[in-house]
């Protein structure tokens, strides 16, 4: 790692201040950040530890309106434990991530702000468009494409790897962001922005902004399912992940949210699949039809066309889980 100053502000406000310079970076659990610093992809002058105060940033609480309030410093292990009752599919997603040791330190905020897992991005000796080079080698002949995205992969083929964003997005969650002047609350989908040449992160967070909480609205009788497909049984990134939320009214689907991870530079919403579900009974035929629409608009590369099929399967399995027909 390049030498840096390690700063431990005592409050979120102070963290905002100390992390405002472009050369500063926020650190929570540090699982993603330290990894990339060791690879010298990230070289901050100042590493600012996100303070564990106030208590709400490190707890899961229930708001007066039934809203679940998840602090950004809640670890994935704690999230899995806290959600086992209220939202077991969130717990399921959290407990599939990385390894037990990492889940004890990795935070919800860190997971939402995770950098791409693209091997080229993480290998400084290779060029990378996202890191500022002219071209994305993944898109060139001979590039390894198995981990690349299948949507919006025009100039950068990286795929957003985190498993929680699709789940939170499917639940219509909001995130709270503390800035220098004000605290703002935005839909989680707005946390993500398409890649820009030379921009290392995938979020819309401005310098000095600190993600503090995730707000999950009350889910009523909504049905949620999460599924991911990996090469290894454990300790592996998903090839594709999918979260599906379905609300039934009078035996027909009245609302449907379908989000995918690891298929595009940002969490990807499968709009066509959602449409295919609306107004239909929640049965196998509907699920099949919705899944078939997932790959709509996909632009797979020669080396990852199979991912389009996996996306279909992942959504189908997420829907089956949501329907309680677990697979």
């Amino acid at each position, binding site marked *: 790692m390049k030498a840096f100053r390690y700063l431990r502000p005592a409050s979120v406000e102070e963290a905002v201040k100390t992390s405002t310079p472009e050369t500063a970076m926020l650190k929570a659990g540090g699982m993603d950040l330290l990894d990339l610093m060791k690879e010298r992809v990230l070289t901050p002058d100042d590493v600012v530890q996100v303070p564990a105060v106030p208590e709400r940033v490190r707890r899961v609480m229930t708001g007066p309106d039934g809203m679940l309030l998840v602090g950004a410093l809640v670890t994935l292990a704690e999230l899995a434990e806290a959600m086992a009752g209220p939202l077991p599919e969130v717990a399921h997603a959290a407990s599939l991530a990385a390894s037990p040791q990492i889940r004890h330190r990795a935070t919800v905020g860190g997971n939402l702000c995770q950098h791409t897992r693209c*091997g080229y991005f993480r290998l400084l000796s*290779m060029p990378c468009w996202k890191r500022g080079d002219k071209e994305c080698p993944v898109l060139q002949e001979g590039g390894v494409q198995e981990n690349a995205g299948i949507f919006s992969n025009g100039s950068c083929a990286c795929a957003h790897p985190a498993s929680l964003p699709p789940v939170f997005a499917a639940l219509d969650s909001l995130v709270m962001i503390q800035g220098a002047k004000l605290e703002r609350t935005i839909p989680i989908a707005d946390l993500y922005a398409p890649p820009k040449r030379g921009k290392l992160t995938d979020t819309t967070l401005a310098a000095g902004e600190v993600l503090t909480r995730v707000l999950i609205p009350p889910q009523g009788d909504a049905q949620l399912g999460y599924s991911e*497909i990996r*090469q*290894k049984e454990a*300790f592996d990134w998903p090839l594709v992940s999918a979260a599906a939320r379905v609300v039934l009214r009078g035996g027909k689907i009245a609302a449907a949210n379908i989000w995918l991870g690891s298929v595009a530079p940002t969490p990807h919403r499968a709009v066509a699949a959602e449409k295919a579900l609306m107004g239909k009974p929640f049965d196998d035929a509907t699920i099949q039809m919705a899944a078939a629409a997932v790959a709509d608009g996909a632009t797979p590369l020669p080396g990852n066309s199979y991912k389009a099929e996996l996306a279909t399967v992942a959504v189908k399995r997420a829907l089956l889980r949501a329907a309680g027909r677990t697979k």
Partner: protein
Amino acid sequence: MTGRRFRFVGKEVARPDGPDKAAGRAEYIHDTVRPGMLHGMIKFSEHAHARIVSVDTSRAERVPGVRAVVTGFNTPKLRMGFLRDNVVLKRDKVRQFRDEVAAVAATDADAAAEAVDLIRVEYEPLPGVFSPDEAMAEGAPLVHEVAPDGSPRTDNALPLTFHHDSGDLEAGMRAAKYVDEGVYSTPLIQQSCMGTAGCIAEFDSAGNLTMRAKTQIPFLAQRDFTRALAAMGLPGRNVRVIVPVLGGGFGTGLDTHCYEYVAILLAWRSGRPVRVLYDRHDEFAHLSPRQSSRTRVVQGCDGEGRLTFRRLDVVQDNGAYAAWGATYPSVMLLPATSLYKVPNVRFDARLVYTNNPYCQAMRGYGNPEVTWPIESSLDHLAEQAGIDPYDLRRINCNEAGELTPMGLKITTCGLDACLEATAERLDWGAKRGKGKAVRRGVGMASLVHVGGGGKIYRSDGSGIILKVDDFGTVYVSYGGVEMGQGLHAVLRQGVAEALGVRPENVVVNRTDTSTCPWDVGTHASRGAFMALNATILAADKLRARLFTWAERVFPEEVRANLKKLRRKDPAFAPPPFDLESACKAENFDLADGWLFLTSAPDEPWLRVEFGRLLRAIHFRDRGTMFVEEAFYEPDTDLPDWEKGYGNMSANYAYGTQGAEVEVDVETGQVRIVRMVAAHDVGRVLNPTALKGQIYGALAQGLGYALHEEIHTDGGRILNPNFTDYKIATAPDMDFPIELVFVETDEPSGPFGAKGVGEPGLVPTAPAIANAIYDAIGIRIRDLPITPEKIVEALRARDAGEA
């Protein structure tokens, strides 16, 4: 199994290294700190192929804490490698990304890293070749323009020939009613030792070198380093190689490495001990992986299923230089010629230089590369012939007494028993060909490997020294290497068995060339086989000498016993026994640490504890102590590689593995339902160590089959980490593995045992692939069998059917 009875062989004897390893007390190279030690770090090439224009180290030299900076221009030229085609610090050009251009030694690792970053190398990039096809194309750029001897080179082929031609191939082809042909490939993979590579080089004031090296070949390393010292102008100096606790070997320690010579140069230049330690990135990018290969197999059988011929053409991407691993074809010849009875065989291997990372040995050494095509193809041959693949294998089963086309003398052979056990445990009859509806299938594959050493060097010998102290503790000095396989555990029980002491009274010393006798290295599954054969020789000598001494000393000690007894019980009257005439050397035995007469009644006073006996022999007028040595050289031949002929091992280990799999046709994921591993081990020496060897090898075989592959792009390794290089985790091994050990009581083996270190990973991939074929009718010919390949193949098949 024969009726031989053993005191410790075959029993659970705990590993002597277990407690310290579990306590975190074992000392690996990473843990050793020498006084004044510096941290060495290497500047690697930034190109796959380029001419070096200049190397500027001036800024590096000014970094505080830097004590030495070496390049090819300020140090003597040190040649290394199996063909001596590699120069430690490059001067003319770089031929791969892992080429060493310069190195730094500094007082701390951060300073060394900073200095390495400040070294500027100017290159003139050259076009590279990144596959054997590219390298062998007309007019391809040459990786080496001149051979080590200075003669010009005209192509990228390695100057090594491995060829075999036995019987009459044409006649064999004519006799075949059914023929199968296919091209199969294996990927570049990494040995993935959990403990990364490293060494500490240290000179004394007289210029003698001590190397602490993570090696499997301490004595060949000593030879290599001695040559390096001579080239450095230090002829006649001593080299001592000390082997620390190894964090895994798997073949990575079969060669000396550039980083070791770099440490030597830095230590000599700085006058301080220098440690070079690889991190995980280095281990992937700057150590040598296992070769990728491509093999065309053609084999045929007659109407009754008898194999009539086999032809193999192997192309191996060797990377930029030749390590010992370049001789993989020496072992490929075993399955090519001697896996199942096949009368007419042709084998050719082409080894090619490319600008990819240069490769080295890994467990199995060429064997999995060709067992993969042979065993996959065999299922297709069976299908054509309408014979159950299990039956086809049994029809052609090897047997004891055979002289194979390669000239291998099959002394004992458990293959038939292994096949039978595998079929039975898999419930083959009920399951084979019957699981298509649920995408379940079973498959099997066999192997043959060297089980009694593998002669690929002028000597395949091993020496041992047994030294006994005054308390009956036996110290064993053996030049082979414990790298986790359990060598010290079996040495402990082998010495106890052969000598007649308790295992807990046997101490195995750290491997050190200054105290241990010569050994060619721990490879070819030879460790336990060699060590225990040498042990038996040395123990017999020691016992013979001890028993001669006992003729005089034993009666004295027995009389002392009696005296003591009478002091306690004056009425004690021993039964009549003529001690003096019984005390002949041939009547003595030592067991469990007690000396006794085999002809004497079983009385406590007629036994003498080993330590007491030793003291009585030592502390007397003209007494003595016991140190015995032995050197065991198996009765084998160094094969003629151009003919591919010679009995390279004292025995051969056969085995069969079976797999039951279930394929998820939506995702292409393969779930292993169960595996069976049936191996002819000659004799089980230590059940826990043996199981560990098979389970561990099988996990590596599973990785080879399903997960592992190094991706490269223009010679650059793209996945130098465990994130993208996928080795199995515990949940990946979530299926039952049934082990079957067939004991054939091998005459050349110590206590009947064969070597078993490598076989466990050899047939795993074809067994799994054959099961996948049985489940879904899809044949993947390129390892690893990823979900993607399965889905693509299913899609292609559906498209074809539609």
